[in-house]
């Protein structure tokens, strides 16, 4: 690290954008009440529609994009951002995995669902399309996932990014943090916990509150989805004869709720006994 270097160098240009989402990840940034001035001081935030009006849309160093691509408009915006940014970061579950709006991808045809919800309408707006994560369309350099993102993970990542280093991605499942927090494992209390296949980073907040993990951070690298499903649906644990099994469809529903496209693929590959095709 060279302190002189930092003084003479211009602050990196960062743009924060949102596609289709609940805006929870951007909100989480706004929620960094104690750090917000540092955020604005460590980088030149050239665009952040949710927090400021004087936005400029030129070349930037780091683009942070929330939300999934759910309309042609989203897609155009994303492609434009990609073109003018050196590093593109997918922020939050929607951007990384498609988000809840991608939960039904495999289930039904998108047009059919649009009709169910809105009836027969001819749209004058950019065409709605099936929700997909950013990586389905453009190169994504890094992912910071979560529904919503963890504020500390984001700040750690941003701290490294503005100094020119890539964030250190998390590569372990929620169970690790759950054990850090010395929780009793909910799988032995007959809860359908997705901790073993879900990317950590939330400090196992749900399990700390006796709530099973819903997988809101998406799949961990090398998630043994087949093993998890097999365990939840079929496996008897000789040490715990009372442990109950779940219906495959319920397991699948839960896994896909936030795991979106990624989880859908993993589940398709897993051949779980008792899975109805």
């Amino acid at each position, binding site marked *: 690290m060279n302190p002189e270097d930092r003084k003479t160098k211009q602050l990196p240009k960062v743009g924060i954008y949102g596609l289709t989402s*609940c805006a929870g990840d951007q909100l989480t940034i706004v929620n960094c009440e104690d750090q917000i001035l540092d955020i604005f001081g460590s980088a030149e935030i050239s665009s952040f529609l949710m927090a400021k009006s004087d936005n400029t849309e030129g070349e930037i160093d780091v683009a942070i994009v929330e939300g999934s691509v759910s309309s042609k408009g989203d897609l155009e915006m994303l492609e434009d951002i990609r073109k003018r940014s050196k590093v593109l970061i997918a922020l939050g579950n929607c951007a990384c995995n498609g*988000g809840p709006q991608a939960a039904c991808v495999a289930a039904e045809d998108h047009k059919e669902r649009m009709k169910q919800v809105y009836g027969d309408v001819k749209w004058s707006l950019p065409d709605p399309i099936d929700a997909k994560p950013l990586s389905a369309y453009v190169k994504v350099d890094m992912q910071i996932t979560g529904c919503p993102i963890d504020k500390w993970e984001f700040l750690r990542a941003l701290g490294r990014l503005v100094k020119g280093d890539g964030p250190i991605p998390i590569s372990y499942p929620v169970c690790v943090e759950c054990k850090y927090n010395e929780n009793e494992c909910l799988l032995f209390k007959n809860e359908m916990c997705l901790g073993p296949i879900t990317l950590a980073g939330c400090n196992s907040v749900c399990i700390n509150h006796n*709530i099973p993990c819903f997988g809101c951070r998406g799949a961990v690298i090398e998630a043994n989805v087949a093993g998890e499903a097999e365990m939840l649906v079929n496996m008897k644990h000789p040490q715990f004869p009372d442990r109950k099994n779940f219906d495959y469809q319920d397991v699948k529903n839960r896994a896909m709720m936030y795991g979106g496209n990624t989880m859908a693929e993993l589940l398709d590959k897993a051949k779980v006994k008792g899975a109805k095709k």
Partner: protein
Amino acid sequence: MKEIKVEHLARVEGHGAITVEVDGRKVKDVKFEVLEGPRLFETITLGKTPAENLSVVPRICAICTLSHRYASLRGLEKCLDIKIPEKTHWMRELMLAGEAIESHSLHVYLLALPDLLGYPNAVAMVTKYADSVVQGLTLKKFGNSIMELCSARATHGENPIIGGFGKFPTNEKLYAIADQAKTLIPYAEGVIDILGNMQYPTFFEKETVFACCNPPDNQYGLVSDEIILSDGKKFSCEDYTKITNERVVPHSFAKRSLYKNSPFSVGSLARVNNLGDRLQERAGDAYEKYKNARWKKNPVYNNLAQAIELLYALEQVPVYVEKLVELKDPPIVKPKRQSGKGTGAVEAPRGTLYHSYEVKDGRMAKVDIITPTAQNYEDIEKYLRLAAEYMVSEGRKDDDVRFQLEVIARAYDPCISCSAHLVKLVRK
């Protein structure tokens, strides 16, 4: 013919745009558009368990996450015939107060004040209005800390579950919250004075109808099974469609509501207009001090109403805490049945929110969610049109028109992402 366009409405949640078609000095059309892709939440949970539904529906909107959760819980618990214990009830009230504090302070200090004081954003205000910015951030953080305490995290916390809470906070933590609430009351009073003494433009004023929940026992509040309108009519929340009957317009993924064929408003201003007389203590005083007939016709007063509610919520926190610390943590109530129907209504910061469900054999069979912004849509467009027509006829500059329209739209605090998820009843 030319168009005046606000392409990306800044400092709101999600993506909105305003288009004004102008022909000479005449406004041909005004459109308030939602550009965000549709998320089809109501089809996502069909066939899934109520627990899954509860987890995912708050993801409709990050700012109103707990309102969604609360409304969903009320709907689902009716379906499953669950009566919740007292402590659970007060915890839920507390979490809603936390959300109101967070959302209102964010909106009042960080989104609306820069407009009214003429700054592009709150950070830019720091040089001259550092106090306001710091107070806003402090209040917002406090709101977040309540949400975190009750729901496990500031946004999309999973702690409130069907039949109770995964874990109740300790009394120590509750007392700390109550104490802090008391110290923040002067902030809220300060901002009420700033907003109450401000001059607001009058040229788009027009009376409208207001709707909100009607809490029992003549109390002010945010939760009820009854809806009250400013014309004096009352409805059960189960009959919400009579008020909201929605329609879809081609230029927006959000759906819109009309009451008796004309637009109406929900939100802080609606609540303060309909129920303001019930406000007690300092919030009551503030209401009396600034009460004014123009509140019924000028949406920009919404910010003042929010500030009054901010004060109200701060005053409620110690009240709820007093009740909570006396009660023992109850176990989670199990469902009495696996099939049933029910609608839950709560007042989200932006207005009445309905979650209407049908559960069959433990799986979601019908989901209908009506968000506040969807109900406000027609009214927002109405006021935008009034303002545009006046300003264009006066020959004001485009930038001027653009700015004023943005101010009106933002005053409503439209949670555009949430309206985009808005979907009609799915009948199979």
